[in-house]
């Protein structure tokens, strides 16, 4: 099958074009010579199927960033039949350098000058025919967002693909240092075919930025926007998530359970409470991820994410992070999973890893449910809000502490030189595509792992078959008793240890598991817990719940996004250690003070 590679700088609308070309028929996959997965899609062009590969956006063919290496290695080991070079027409004067570098590789290529609509508005006129003649490459103007110029470009691509590809010269590397030559070439071509007005007329962006990046108003506006986003995800997400849970519950009672009723009880339990619940856990995340990325598409594609980086960088750079990490950390307070996936906007691996190490400390909505229940059961109505507030403070403090401790192990290799694009509004199509792609990747990457984890915890809490579920006689109970010397100094009873083992799956089921363990629910459970625990133990339990691994889905996402089991284990180990240390310090100090 013939291969077409999409190449271009960041912020050129490359992904929008990729989505327009491939529709929803794309997948992630591995390629020879590189370790990162790339998005590709197969489409019918003319009379044959071709594969289109979306390469990461790069600034420079001889750059040092990870993405630039990926592109070089990819091209070296997978010479495409055609390279589609996407340039931003509004920035043609500087993007031409990448094209001239690529031209030296002797690739079969077609150039698409994207955002032709925007260039026109700015008064930039480009004579594509003249430029094409000057460079000896077919060049087309188009708008990937609105589709103008797209049919002509597609036709040219189909036609070009019929010819065979000249191979890439092995002397590629030695040709790389030719900036001098490129400089002159650029000036010549620009003079012939491009006219740029002396003063740009994009007043809207300038006016908006005078508010959004205002020295005093900028930060309050930023926090206001984050608050609204957060509320919106909650407002729409929770009913949707509840709906998914109800549907799965209904399906279980109405269809799955009757279907399995002839099986032995243990096998029924395994299939229903293990496998089926695992699938339901995965499904419950889907509406959250779609919503999160619909909103992220707005924040990112409008260009606001770069503005957030500008506003927050002074503070975050001291922690070895940048402003974009802060946005993801805040979003993590809704749900850690999409926030971890969202770190993909950061192109430096070490910056991403450090952000991913920090995000799981965000007090997500699932943990909030546990804290609301326990603080209502063990604290007075007056004290309960303060307890919740203090847990939010601990959440931030753990994140900051982790970043400060580990920043030197994840030195940021990427210079902080970001483009600040003009404000644009994404089309609905772009937003929906984004949500769909992210859900697809989540399901593709994490679902098996999550189901396996849920099954494992079911086995631990239900075997041997002679024991009552979640009792002290199960493997989980035995494990809890065995771990008792470790948990006694932080005030956590063996009963609660079993709940923590359940909590590995998801924090949503912690209260449910306590109900099973105590054999009580609702008010009765609150009462029983208030009798058996004092507030110091309860607070210690909440601290531990806050800081240790949020859920299996987070673990699965960490593993897939970092592409490293080692990193996943490190994150689990560090969060357990920090959870224990903080709970220990709190419990022992509180007891020493006589509480």
């Amino acid at each position, binding site marked *: 099958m013939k291969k077409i590679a999409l190449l271009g*700088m960041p912020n050129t609308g490359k992904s929008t074009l990729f989505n327009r070309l491939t529709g929803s028929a794309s997948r992630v996959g591995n390629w020879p010579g590189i370790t990162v997965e790339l998005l590709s899609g197969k489409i019918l062009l003319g009379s044959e199927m071709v594969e289109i590969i979306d390469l990461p956006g790069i*600034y*420079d063919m*001889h*750059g*040092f*960033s990870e993405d630039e290496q990926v592109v070089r290695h990819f091209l070296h080991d997978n010479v495409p039949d055609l390279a589609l070079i996407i340039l931003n027409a*509004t*920035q043609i*004067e*500087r993007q031409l*350098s*990448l094209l001239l570098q690529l031209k030296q590789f002797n690739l079969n290529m077609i150039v698409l000058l994207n955002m032709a609509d925007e260039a026109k508005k*700015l008064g*930039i006129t480009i004579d594509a025919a003249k430029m094409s003649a000057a460079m000896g490459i077919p060049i087309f103007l188009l708008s990937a967002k609105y589709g103008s110029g797209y049919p002509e470009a597609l036709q040219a691509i189909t036609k070009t693909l019929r010819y065979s590809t000249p191979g890439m010269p092995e002397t590629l590397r030695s040709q790389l240092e030719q*900036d001098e030559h490129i*400089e002159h070439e650029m000036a010549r071509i620009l003079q012939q075919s491009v006219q*740029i007005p002396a003063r*740009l007329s994009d007043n809207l962006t300038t006016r908006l*930025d005078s508010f959004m*990046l205002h*020295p005093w108003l*900028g*930060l309050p506006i930023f926090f206001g926007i984050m608050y609204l986003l957060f509320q919106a995800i909650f407002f729409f997400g929770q009913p949707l998530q509840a709906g998914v849970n109800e549907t799965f519950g209904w399906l279980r009672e109405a269809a799955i359970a009757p279907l399995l009723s002839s099986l032995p009880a243990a096998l029924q339990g395994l299939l229903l409470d293990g496998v089926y619940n695992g699938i339901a856990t995965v499904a419950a995340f889907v509406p959250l991820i779609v919503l999160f990325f619909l909103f992220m598409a707005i924040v990112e594609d409008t260009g606001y994410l*770069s503005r957030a*980086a*500008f*506003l927050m*960088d*002074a*503070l975050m*750079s001291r922690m070895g992070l940048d402003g974009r990490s802060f946005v993801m950390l805040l979003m993590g307070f809704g749900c850690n999973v999409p926030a971890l996936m969202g770190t993909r906007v950061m192109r430096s691996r070490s910056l991403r890893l450090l952000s991913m190490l920090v995000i799981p400390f965000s007090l997500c909505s699932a943990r909030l449910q546990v804290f609301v229940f326990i603080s209502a059961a063990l604290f007075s109505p007056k004290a309960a809000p303060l307890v919740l507030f203090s847990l939010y403070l601990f959440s931030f403090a753990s994140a900051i502490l982790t970043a400060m401790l580990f920043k030197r192990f994840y030195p940021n*290799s990427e*210079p*902080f*030189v*970001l*483009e*600040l*694009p*003009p404000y644009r509004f994404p089309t609905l199509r772009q937003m929906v595509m984004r949500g769909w792609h992210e859900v697809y990747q989540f399901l593709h990457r994490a679902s098996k792992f999550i189901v396996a984890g849920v099954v494992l915890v079911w086995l631990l809490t239900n075997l041997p078959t002679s024991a009552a579920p979640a009792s002290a006689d199960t493997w989980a109970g035995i494990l809890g008793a065995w771990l008792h010397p470790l948990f006694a100094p932080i005030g956590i009873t063996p009963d609660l240890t079993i709940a923590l083992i359940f909590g590995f799956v998801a924090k949503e089921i912690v209260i449910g598991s306590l109900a099973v363990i105590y054999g009580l629910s609702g008010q009765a459970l609150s009462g029983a817990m208030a009798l058996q625990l004092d507030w110091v133990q309860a607070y210690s339990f909440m601290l531990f719940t806050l800081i240790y691994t949020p859920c299996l889905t987070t673990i699965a996402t960490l593993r897939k996004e970092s592409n490293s089991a080692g990193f996943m284990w490190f994150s689990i180990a560090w969060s357990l250690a920090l959870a224990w240390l903080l709970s220990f310090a709190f419990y022992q100090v509180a007891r020493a003070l006589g509480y």
Partner: protein
Amino acid sequence: MTLSSMNPGDVATIVSIHTDEALHQRLLAMGFRVGKHIELIRKARFSGPLQVRIGTTDILLRKIEAEKIMVQA
């Protein structure tokens, strides 16, 4: 003078760039070339990053990096 010592609204010409090679490549690709006009749009609070404009592109960079770029008014 250095880029970091410019004030918002100032326009200057890039004279020289003294950075390591990785950053130099990135700056080149962003349009930082000797002889180009550069305008300082704004500076973030608390010694945060600078927003500069070269041609049609707006760029954010940190103060520490801006100190390595020499300009002339």
